[in-house]
Each structure stands twice: as structure tokens, then as C-alpha cells.
């Protein structure tokens, strides 16, 4: 950005939010220039921390008038480079807008501002609404509730309810023009219980990675918190067995959450809980006696009897449908739904880098995709580190291979990048779609979709963001 333009911009921003909430200090900007992934870094020109809607409106109007890029930011933890400002400009750090505006005990929703984090909402509900709960990702507690829904996250109630955007029951959005629009029942009433029966305009903003507008309020569903919980785990000796177990459990419709991990990844994570170390490099291969895949079903009940009956029903389903399949378990363990497994962070970021090809796709292609993805990991001599979460009662699945890596090791970085490129081609071939789509995967996806899809996407983007100020260079990028 030209220096004179920048100083005028900064002066105006300072007028809007006050100088202590605007920074051009390189030490501040640097932090926003990169993330955990090997994505190419790029610096913003200025970082702004607004607190009110009025401030936000003034910032967006200014940016739109001056055609300055704006990248919304909460914790930058998306593992897809989504908050790296590809075209510089303003990084809009929304963490100061962190009010939990309303919790409706009866209608079971929370209305939150962008900066509200998983940690914050959990602490708030535990204290003020102890019979209600939200659903959480395995990401750190600093993860934004709203950001997670915007990137269609997979959380610990996803087996029941699908991706995080599915439980959004209302939005307030700031458009490039400065207009503030409410979507869902909140548009016409005081209550934010549902998007229906309106046209589902939330789709213009959810999943768009902040490229169409800034969401200023979001209503999300809450659920009653069952008193009893447990986790049931099955260890399959091969992936065919894992698939059979998953199918058996899916058809019970019982769990709250159904996940599976490669045994090696599971072993490393378990050790991390005890602050013990096992590295994933050089590649750890399982011995013949060890299982290949660990499946965990989180089960809850209002009473102990209900919980017991559910556990028994799941065990029975697996016994019946998986005859002849070699497995260990089932074992019951304490449920992890109540806590963030933060100790796993040490495993996932021990070299400063974390990368994955994450995707959503059909259960029908799950077995072949996971087999081929794991074989690719073998080819690159990288520990099998698959992580799957079954979504929406088995209507689709989340699938990714977690790749913590040492940022300081160029050979490893190259190996990881090459593996990811091959895994991306693989998943696309199998009908799995890259989620929280990094820009390199967006471009790959765009090669596969029809030209009319592209036209529609770009038309939507152009209509909502004619000056292409919102997180430019990603979804709906105009042809260059």
C-alpha cells in the first residue's frame, strides 16, 4: 500500500476506534502474517480491534470507499491459511467484540458476538445455565464460536447434528455497503430460534470464509446437558473392520459423537496426556499385534440406566454386525466431552507446524479413501494419522490426516506439502471435498466444478462485495 494512502487510512481508523486499537507496529503485524500451516505468509498493512457495531460499520464503509482489503480474524486457528491477508490491507481482529448477548433457556440458543470463544461460552454456560451445553471442537478454547460455524466445523455433537453451520439459528451481517442485515427469525422478532421459514440467506455468509460480509451476531443452538456420559472404544485390526464397526454404530443412532483415529496417532495422544513423549517422526508403524484404528463413541444418558442401556445396545449392534471381525474392546473410558483435550496440542504443534488435508465426503467412499490416504502416508514414510468424525448420523463423514511437522526442517516441509498435494487429488477423485478450504485447494476445486457454478459464485461475491474488499483472493475470486 502506498505510504500516503496508508497514513490517511490509519488516521481515519484511529479516529474511529482510538489509536490504542490500531497498530502498524511491525511486531504486531508480523503475528498476523502467518499461521500454523506452510501457507505463504503475507503481512497486513494495519490491524484494527473494534468493539462496537458502530465502529465496525465505520471501518467497513471506509475500507469499501478506499477499496482496502479487510480480513476478519478471531484466533487464526483454522489450519488453512484463511486469515493470512493475501492482499494485505486491514486485519480486522474481532476479539474485543466478545459479548454473550443472550442465552434463551427455553428456546435453547445463545446469541453471541464474533469474539466469543469456546472457552468463554463453556465457562458462561457452566456457571449461569448449568443444564445447557454447547458443542466443541478439538481445537483450543480460544477458537471463536462464530468462526467455527463460519468454517462449518466438526464438533462433539456433529454425529447428531452435522457441521457447525447447521445449528446456526440466526445472523446479523454487516455488508460492504455498511448495511446491517438480520437473517432468520431475529429479523422480524425478538427471538432467534430458527432461520426457517425464511429463504435461507445464511448460505450467503456461512462457509464463505469472510469473503461476503462481516457477521456481527450469530445465534447458535444449545442443548440440554445429560447428567451421565461415557466413551466406548473399539479397536479394529484393519480398516475394513473399522468400517464395519462404524456402520454398525451409525445405524444405532445412539452416540452423540463418533470418531476414529489411526492407532499410532491415538497412542501418541494418550501419552501426551501424561506429559510423556512419543514422536511421530521417523514414521511409527504398528506391530502386527497392534490395532490399526481406534473408534470412539461418546454416549450420554439422562439416567444411569439409560446410559447403560445405550452402551449395551451399541455393543450388541457391533457384536451382531461384526461377527468374524478381529478387534479389541469394547472398553469404556471417561467421556472427554466435558473438557478440551489440550494436552493433545503438544503433539499437534510440537514442531510449530500443523497441516492437514481435511474433507467432508460420503460414507460410501470412506473405506477406499481412507485406505488410499493412509497408503500415501506410508509412501512418504509418515506416521498414519487419520482422523475421522462421522457427521449427521452417518450421512457424511469428516476425514483428515493430521500432520504436525517441524517448521525448521525444509525436507520435511517439502514432504508434507507433496503428500498433501497427492492426498488432495485423491480425496477429490473419491468425492471428498476439502473443508475450511485453503486457497490452493479452492483453485483445485474450481477446476472440477462446472462453469455455471463458478459464474454463480462470482456473481454472489460481486453482488455482496462489489469492490472485492472481504478476504480477497479466496472463494468467489473474480477472474484475474
Amino acid at each position, binding site marked *: 500500500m502506498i505510504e500516503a494512502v496508508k497514513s490517511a487510512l490509519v488516521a481515519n481508523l484511529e479516529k474511529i476506534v482510538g489509536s*490504542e*486499537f490500531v*497498530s502498524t*507496529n*511491525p*511486531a*504486531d503485524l*508480523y*503475528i*498476523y502474517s502467518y*499461521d*500454523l500451516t506452510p501457507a505463504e505468509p503475507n503481512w497486513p498493512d494495519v*490491524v484494527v*480491534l473494534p468493539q462496537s457495531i458502530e465502529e465496525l460499520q465505520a471501518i467497513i464503509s471506509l475500507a469499501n470507499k478506499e477499496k482496502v482489503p479487510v480480513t476478519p480474524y478471531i*484466533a*487464526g*486457528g483454522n489450519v488453512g491459511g484463511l486469515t493470512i491477508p493475501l492482499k494485505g490491507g486491514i486485519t480486522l*481482529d474481532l*476479539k*474485543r467484540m466478545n459479548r454473550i448477548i443472550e442465552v434463551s433457556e427455553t428456546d435453547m440458543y445463545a446469541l453471541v458476538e464474533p469474539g466469543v470463544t469456546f*472457552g*468463554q461460552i*463453556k*465457562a*458462561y454456560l457452566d*456457571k449461569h445455565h448449568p443444564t445447557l451445553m454447547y458443542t466443541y471442537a478439538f481445537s*483450543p*478454547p*480460544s477458537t471463536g464460536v462464530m468462526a467455527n460455524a463460519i468454517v462449518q466445523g466438526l464438533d462433539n455433537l456433529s454425529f447428531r447434528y452435522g457441521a457447525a453451520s447447521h445449528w446456526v439459528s440466526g445472523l446479523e451481517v454487516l455488508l460492504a455497503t455498511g448495511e446491517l442485515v438480520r437473517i432468520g427469525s431475529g429479523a422480524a422478532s425478538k427471538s432467534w430460534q430458527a432461520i426457517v421459514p425464511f429463504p435461507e440467506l445464511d448460505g450467503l455468509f456461512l462457509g464463505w470464509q469472510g469473503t461476503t460480509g462481516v457477521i456481527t451476531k450469530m445465534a447458535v443452538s444449545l442443548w440440554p446437558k445429560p447428567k451421565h456420559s461415557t466413551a466406548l472404544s473399539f479397536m479394529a485390526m484393519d480398516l475394513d473392520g473399522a468400517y464395519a464397526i462404524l456402520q454398525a454404530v451409525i445405524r444405532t443412532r445412539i452416540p452423540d459423537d463418533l470418531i476414529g483415529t489411526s492407532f499410532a496417532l491415538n497412542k501418541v495422544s494418550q501419552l501426551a496426556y501424561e*506429559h510423556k*513423549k*512419543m*514422536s*511421530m*517422526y*521417523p514414521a511409527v508403524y504398528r506391530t502386527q499385534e497392534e490395532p490399526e484404528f481406534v473408534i470412539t463413541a461418546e454416549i450420554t444418558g439422562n439416567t444411569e440406566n439409560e446410559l447403560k442401556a445405550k452402551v449395551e445396545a451399541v455393543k450388541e449392534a457391533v457384536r451382531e454386525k461384526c461377527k468374524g471381525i478381529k478387534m479389541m474392546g469394547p472398553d469404556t473410558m471417561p467421556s472427554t466431552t466435558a*473438557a*478440551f483435550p*489440550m*494436552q493433545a*496440542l*503438544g503433539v*499437534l*504443534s*510440537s*514442531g*510449530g507446524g*500443523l497441516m492437514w488435508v481435511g474433507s467432508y465426503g460420503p460414507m460410501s467412499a470412506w473405506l477406499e479413501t481412507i485406505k488410499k490416504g493412509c497408503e500415501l502416508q506410508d509412501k512418504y514414510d509418515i506416521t498414519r494419522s487419520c482422523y475421522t468424525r462421522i457427521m449427521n448420523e452417518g450421512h457424511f463423514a469428516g476425514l483428515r490426516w493430521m500432520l*504436525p*511437522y*517441524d*517448521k*525448521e526442517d525444509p525436507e520435511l516441509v517439502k514432504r508434507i506439502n507433496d503428500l498433501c498435494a497427492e492426498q488432495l487429488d485423491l480425496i477429490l477423485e473419491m468425492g471428498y471435498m476439502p473443508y475450511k478450504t485453503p486457497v490452493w485447494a479452492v483453485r483445485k476445486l474450481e477446476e472440477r466444478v462446472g462453469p455455471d457454478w463458478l459464474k454463480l459464485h462470482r456473481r454472489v461475491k460481486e453482488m455482496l462485495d462489489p469492490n472485492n474488499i472481504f478476504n480477497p483472493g479466496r472463494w468467489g475470486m473474480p477472474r484475474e
Partner: protein
Amino acid sequence: MALEDYRSDMEMCCRCSICKFVPLEKLKEIQHSYVCPSIARYNFHTYAGGGRMGMGIAMLEKELEYDGKLLEVVYNCQMCGACDISCKYAMDMEVLEPINEIRIKCVEDGHTVPALDGVINSLRKQGTMVPGAKARRGEWAKGLDVKDITRQKAKVIYHAGCRVCYDEDMWRVAKATVTLLHKAGIDVGIAGENESCCGGRAYQMGYKEELLNQAKQNMELIKKSGAEILVTGCADCYCAFKVLYDKFGLKDDLEVLHTTEYLARLIKEGKLKPTKKVETKVTYHDPCHLGRLGEPYIHWEGKPVPGHIRIFGPPKEFRRGTYGIYEPPRDVLKSVPGLELVEMDRIKEYAWCCGAGGGVKETNPEFARWTARERIDEAESTGAEAIVTACPGCERNFKDTIKENGSSLKVYDVVELLEKAT
């Protein structure tokens, strides 16, 4: 060790921001969720432990140039170590060590801030961190019949510290300590005019050489005196003698005790008997350098195992703040008849800093007061009449803040309340 030696720790930072807060499982009240004063006050991620990790890497990579703005971030931090301990709830990485190394690098590269230069010049010239000090170092002990360890043998040496010696208001704490030790029949001496700064605060400010010089000088004096135990009522001095001197191999076998540790021991042994009622409701503030940073140093020498990420041979044990001094001051308070102790939300490992540390009181008094104000508000919310601490640095900052902003809260040192009861 230098900043470069902490590269892999800094690289490990996943920007999870846990270092900004009390870990979720330990959180008591959302209003008191922040544990890092710097990020709570300045908001930009760079001010948090995690941001400082990124900044350290950028400095090594020469992505950032030294300028006033960089130093503003570097020095607006109390070096309270809360980030380090919260981070280690989940992670096995050093946070405070590299933050300290960033400062040492600034000083070594000649980039210092004027307010601290003044303090350090005073240390170099007069052996005290209090520039323009009016009183003489040993003046507080006037009229007390206490041994001079430069001339007489004593088993225990009481180190008062700069913040007591040059602040008349604090003399009563030092006097009370000696009186109590005498009551318990302890053979205690002081170095009086010959006492010198511990060097701990200079180290926090980035002046490593000054710490080493002071440590050598102090240990020489102590060795000569033949004392076996050093007792101090200042958290910074405690951390310097016990942790930093040990870190640099200069502590020998000197036993270092905080006054509250020693007094709690004497009460348990029946050598001190608090019998008089002190009817008051108080809350206790854990000083950072006595609590989480008062944990013994853990010596470790090893190397990363080749081909592995962050696995060391031999395995590295991390200081997580668990073994800091938390119970002795509380035990002393609980021994006082009539006294009711109530706890704040952020305590022990996750205590909120008083605001004075890391040179902030010198470089940015407004930030020091802002931080103290947060703690005073937290203390008030417990319904206590007084905030009690175990460090003259914390006490001074609380008092200055109350004087400026007002509050009915009283400020005491643990020792004062024990003296009243004994």
C-alpha cells in the same frame, strides 16, 4: 543460553492463546479469566506470551528491526510468568525463558529504555535498584539488637532487599521479621550497610551481567559469614537467591527461605505461638516470584533426539509452577486467631500479577497501576477488608494505586499480621 537456544520452544507455539487465560479447567469466574496483564491491557496478540514467541522468532530471522515500537512491546510485560505456567498446562515448552532472552538480546544489542538505564546505573554505582535513594541501606535496623554478619557469626542471614531498605514505610516489615525470629530464638544476622541488591530485577529487565555480578558479590559475603540459611521477605530476592543463582551455578548449598516459609516452620515447631486475636477478613495475593516462579530450578542438560520433534535425551522436566510457595503464607495467616482468609478467583499458579514486575513500575507506571487496580478490584469482590501479600514490591504498588485511585482496602504483609498476633 541465548534466544537462539529457545528457537524450537518458540517455534512450537501453536497460537492457542491459552497463555492469556487461566486454563479453562481452573477457571472460576469469567470476569477473572485473563492471567496476562499485558494482553489484557494492550489487546494485540504480540503482547501475550504466544505473541512474544512469534516476535522472538521474527527477531532471530531479522524480520523485525529495533525501534521504539518493538521496545514498547518488549518492556510492557511484567515478566510475571503467568503465560509460562498456563501454557505448560498443555504444552511442554518454555515461554518465560525466551521472553527474558528477548530482553537480554535487546540489552546486548544496545537497545535499552531510558527509565531502566537509570535504575541499572544506580545498581552499578551504588548496589541498589533505587536511584536517588535517600536512606542508607542498613538504616531500617537502627535500634534493633541484631547481629552484623560481616563481623559476627550467625546461622541465619536476613536479606531485607532494596525495596525494604530504601522505603521507610517498609521498615516495619523488616523489623517485625527480626523481632519474630528473635522471639523464636533464631540466631539471625544482617549485612546492614554491606547488603547489596540480589540482581534479580536487573535480570528480569534483561541485564544478565548485572545479575551475575551481584550474585558473585553476595555469595562471597554470605560464604565469608558462614551463614547456612538466607531468609528474605522479598519475592524478587527470594527468586534470585533460590532460583536464578542456582540456574547459574552460584547458589552452592545455601538454603534459601522466604520469611513466610521460615515463620510457618517455626509456628509448626511451636517456637512461635500466635495467641492474640486479630479479627479481620483478608485475602492473600500470591507474589509471582514467590509463587509460580519461586519453584526450584530444575537443572537439565540434553539435546533433541535426532530425527524427532521436541524429544530430548535425557527427557526434560518442565517447571510448571506446582512447587512454588503457596501454602506457607496461607498457613501463617491461618495460624492467626480471629483472622478469616478468603480466596480470590485467580490464585497460586494462576495468580494475577501486582503490576510492579519486570521494570514496568519504572517504565510505565500507568500500566503498573492499571494492573494493580485489577487485582484490588478482585480482592474487593471477595468481601475482604485487606489484601495481604508477602513482597514489598507488591505492597508498594498496591498502596500507591490505592492512594491514587482510592479504595477502602487495607494492604498488609503477612509478617505484620503475625507480629500482631504473637
